[in-house]
């Protein structure tokens, strides 16, 4: 193998693939990136066995070939090379070391044979549809903050994506919950998705995908079966296992009888919550909402720090009600509301509350109150 490639192009691709590689690996080959040079392209593959990323980039190939080398080491080297350098990569003989040359620098890196690199076999992914970059971003941003980290209920460690109907309209829905809050996002069902199984996309896959799609101009092709999903966009292919579990029946968690509606300017509300929560204890983060006629009082107390109170103008004509929430959960939701107004639908101080964006019905949030 011998090739030359522009440092910027190599760095960009390496940045993408190395992020999949776990920092600590018990299996040495999984620390490596597979480099394959042929037909004017350098392909780079990294995997943690559950999630695999393949990225192609143009390079001038002198001699085709392949090898594997430590992903983080190679990334660190390329990162430190001066901007605009040309990088020459070559492998001498079979199973030899990888030589990297750029300007006056030369590195000789240990390799492992490409045959040892876990192969991603072609899998049958019968359901194929396309998401626009913006749609995928929204789908992830509106839901991923509610993904649970609880190891016992592993089936909550991802976003549940499935086809459903909202009224008569077929929709693609994404749901995440940890039992204390739930986030649901829906969008018109893309063509080809109607027969898809409900799948749980693991958190790491969601996070890696999110990092990569900011720059996506065309659509993202999503192909899936009930065990795997593949995202294809630009020069990148991300393939992931899905969480093998049953997502709970989240519909019954979304209350339907909450009749006390409060609307509030979202930015004002969020900054007030943020201020007041300075006082609430690190561990509880509780903030109390006291709703009265036209005014909402936010308050927090902590035995050590003291107390805080702030009044916010609201639209509300229900009976007075006091309810406590985790301030961080309130802020997570408020940050996803892009419109001016947020609407809270409450039942009483101990039942789940619904929050939505007044200007955008695609997302809905459910929040469990805290005892305050």
């Amino acid at each position, binding site marked *: 193998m011998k090739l030359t490639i522009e440092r910027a192009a190599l760095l960009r691709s390496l940045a993408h693939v190395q992020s999949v590689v776990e920092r600590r690996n018990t299996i040495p080959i999984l620390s490596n990136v597979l480099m394959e040079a042929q037909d004017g392209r350098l392909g780079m593959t990294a995997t943690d066995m559950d999630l695999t990323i393949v990225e192609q980039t143009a390079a001038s190939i002198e001699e085709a070939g392949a090898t594997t080398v430590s992903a983080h080491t190679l990334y660190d080297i390329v990162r430190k090379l001066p901007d605009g350098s040309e990088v020459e990569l070559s492998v001498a003989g079979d199973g030899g070391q990888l030589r990297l040359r750029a300007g006056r620098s030369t590195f000789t890196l240990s390799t492992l044979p490409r045959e040892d690199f876990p192969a991603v076999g072609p899998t049958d992914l019968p359901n194929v549809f396309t998401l626009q970059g913006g749609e995928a971003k929204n789908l992830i941003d509106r839901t991923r903050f509610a993904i*649970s*980290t*609880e*190891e*016992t*209920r592993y089936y*909550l460690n991802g976003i549940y994506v499935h086809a459903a109907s909202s009224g008569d309209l077929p929709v693609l829905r994404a749901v995440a*919950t*940890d*039992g*204390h809050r*739930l986030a649901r996002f829906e969008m018109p069902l893309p063509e080809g998705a109607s027969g898809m199984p409900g799948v749980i996309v693991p958190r790491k896959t969601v996070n890696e995908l999110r990092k990569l799609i900011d720059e996506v101009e065309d659509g993202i092709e999503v192909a899936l079966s009930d065990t795997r999903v593949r995202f294809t966009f630009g020069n990148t292919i991300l393939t992931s296992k899905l969480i093998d579990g049953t997502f*709970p029946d989240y519909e019954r*968690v979304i209350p339907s009888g909450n009749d006390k509606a409060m609307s509030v300017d979202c930015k004002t509300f969020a900054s007030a919550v943020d201020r007041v929560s300075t006082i609430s204890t690190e*561990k*509880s983060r509780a903030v109390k909402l006291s709703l009265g006629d036209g005014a909402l009082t936010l308050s927090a107390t902590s035995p050590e720090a003291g107390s805080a109170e702030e009044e916010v103008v609201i639209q509300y004509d229900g009976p007075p009600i006091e309810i406590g929430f985790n301030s961080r959960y309130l802020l997570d939701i408020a940050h996803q509301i892009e419109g001016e107004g947020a609407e809270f639908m409450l039942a009483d101080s*101990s039942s*789940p509350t619904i929050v939505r964006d007044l200007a955008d019905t695609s997302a809905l949030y*459910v929040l*469990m*109150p*805290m*005892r305050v």
Partner: protein
Amino acid sequence: MQEAEAVQVLCRDCTALTTPTTSVRRCPSCGARRLVRHRELGSLSFAHLDCDAFYASVEKRDRPELREKPVIVGGGQRGVVSAACYVARLYGVRSAMPMFKALSLCPDAVVLKPDMNKYREVSRGIRDRMSALTPQIEPLSLDEAFLDLAGTSRLHHAAPAQSLARLANEIERDLGVSVSIGLSNCKLLAKIASDLDKPRGFAVIGTAEAADFLADKPVSILWGVGGALQKKLLSDGIRFVQDLLPYEESELMARYGAMGRRLYLFARGQDPRPVEADAPAKSLSSETTFEQDIQDLDSLRRHLWLLCEKVARRLRDKEVAGKTVTLKLRLADFRLQTRSRQLFAPTQSAETLYETGGRLLDENWKAGGYRLIGIGAADLVPGELADPPDFLDPQRTRRIAVEKAVDGLNRKLGTPAVRKGRSFTS
């Protein structure tokens, strides 16, 4: 200044503190021979109090016929030695030694099961007497504590050394157990001192001689230097405390992290750690050593459940909740395994502890037998944050209500009156 300070003499019987001009062998006021001599007796105020062979002493107090016999307090055939009296120690018996080994060293020993309630009562008595001297008390266990008596001289009309001698006498007279006292100026030295003159001791390490005293001692004498660190220090050529002295604080910190700073200060006889009165518990745990090794996963699970019930009950009693669950296993070959897992929300429920602990057990269980199982809850937070309502698991709230109701019943009826069926074998 140093020259001006004459040797002071404390009589441990009448607690008189005098500055005799000639060297004396008997107390000038009462004639007793139990004297402590030191230049800084009048000024040192930091103490470590340690009961002598505590559990065994309490047992001997209650059964005078055992006075001359080797007595070991510990659990069953398979347990470990919780305390060995000084007679048993002559045979080489030490606490934390496996019982079979202790009995092979000292076959005539009288082995008694620990009676924790009794020990707790004596301990409370000691604590009450300490509280009368100072609010600055940090109990380390039932039988030892740090006390800071700075500023108490005027209140008690006695120097801290005198108050401590009086305390030791009172404990011996009223509670029938003896204690050893280490007097110095910090935790590190007070704790070392209490061990110098055991049993029934009173030892002093002064500020002036602290560094000299430590210099030729092995580094393991320092607080926090256990097997692993000792090994690491040794590989860096540091065997004795004085070997630390040539290094700058920054060098030690670079090499040993936060501990490096401690080592730097410790080597100079300095320890800035204050007494932490009522330091809140960092974790709660319970463990059991089996009569015979257990291999079978179901039996292990049954034991685990009982421990989870116990830990959960104590969490609720103390109004705290744990966010991390730790499973502890000791294999038949004595190897220790601990596995921890963070919970999503803090808990004080036995079911939740068991769910997580049981999963850790399933994941780590191997054939070969276990001699001990334990479960602990760590990362403690206030009890009001325990088990927040979970809309995916409405049963959880109900289960916790059941556990609390059972607590109430058990408190009324005596501990294990009401239990889950899970703990019974068919």
